[in-house]
């Protein structure tokens, strides 16, 4: 059975545009194969209903954001996502851009992870001509169990501990300041 028009729009918003902070009716129209020049009125008419249901929020005129619930989106954590993609491509080469595109990680994260795997002897970095990005190829398959970047995890752990210490120090300073302010106020009252 053909899908209803509103359901088609919903599918596009919750799948294609799920990572978009905001989008326009034009973005939806293109995904519905409505080329420029074709009428967009049905989409404009459908949007108020989505807004009424709370699935869509109007950010400004013509610009919307999808708030619908129920779609879990990316469930695996990003390192796991990178590792699974690398293993899925173990018969071919993979680049930093592939990880960015498929896992939504930053360039630094992707580079660090691939370098870590290369240092462990799991991947080999393949030099490419001039401006082309490096390619990495799996030379030893470590199996499906996730390989974490332990050095990075250690660094993050230290950062978290330092942050906790700083926060504790700040709160004790704040308490001392509050006590001092109260003492000054009491002196002034006397």
């Amino acid at each position, binding site marked *: 059975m053909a899908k209803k028009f509103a359901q088609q729009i919903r599918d596009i918003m919750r799948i294609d545009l799920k990572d978009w902070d905001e989008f326009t009716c034009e973005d939806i129209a293109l*995904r519905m194969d409505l*080329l420029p020049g074709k009428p967009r009125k049905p989409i404009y008419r459908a949007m108020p209903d989505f807004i009424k249901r709370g699935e869509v929020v109007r950010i400004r005129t013509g610009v919307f954001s999808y708030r619908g619930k129920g779609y879990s989106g990316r469930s695996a954590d990003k390192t796991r996502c990178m590792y699974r993609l690398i293993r899925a491509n173990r018969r071919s080469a993979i680049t930093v851009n592939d990880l960015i*595109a498929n896992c939504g990680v930053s360039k630094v994260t992707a580079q660090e992870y691939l370098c870590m795997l290369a240092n462990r002897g799991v991947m080999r970095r393949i030099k490419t001509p001039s401006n082309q990005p490096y390619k990495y190829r799996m030379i030893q398959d470590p199996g499906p169990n996730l390989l974490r970047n332990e050095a990075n995890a250690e660094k993050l752990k230290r950062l978290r501990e330092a942050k906790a210490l700083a926060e504790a120090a700040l709160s004790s300073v704040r308490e001392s300041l509050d006590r001092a302010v109260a003492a000054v106020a009491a002196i002034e009252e006397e």
Partner: protein
Amino acid sequence: MAALKMSRSQFIQTQNVRNVVLMMDDIRMDLGEGRFGVICGGAGLGKSESVKWYHANHKHTVYLESTAIWYSSELEFLRDLCRELGMEDIAHRKGPCFRDIVDHLYDNPETVIFIDEVDRLKNMHLELMRDITRMTMCPIILIGESKLIPFMQRNERVWTRTFRPVMFTPMKPSDVIIYAREAAGIRMGADVAAILHRTRTKRTTDGNFRLVKRALLYSVQYANAKDTGEVTPEIAKSAVDSAIKWAKR
């Protein structure tokens, strides 16, 4: 004029990718109903890329690419599956391997198995997969080119267990516009998109993702060389010619 740039770090969700996600949503709703899913279509349409993207972003999925060695040995197929499922001490005989897989999947009933390039396997592999999905209720998604469907239809017990297949179709002109916008930041009209979409060669059809991607890359290079800041129909035509030059030889 600011130079146009082509980003390679974009995963473009075309209608095909959306269909895969919807099929997986439907199959996951029906977990416990051992069955096959099918994703098929010609080469260069993004089947494997879509499945790898889905696998990378979802837990409890296993992705296997068939190898030539499987053709002559079902044991190798079973051993590779054991390895992907994270088992240790993998058996060296078919029977124990099969039982280990079934036991593992009983304990992990939410597992979904993707097997790529199935169309080059034999009926015995399909029978093994059928037994696995029937006994464990875990869905198995088979990916292959168009001959995959006749291959499965020959085995009625397999075909009747098959969920509605997702047929990968060539990119549409609207997909070209989305791709140009997201990968290169180019706002493209329907006329230019139609030209880029028409990357026809003797062997490939319109909307082949690899060819369209190449044509768009050339378009960006030519637009930068001419300092136009946009892709005109003339540039698009030259880019398409360059993109399919290899096929004209």
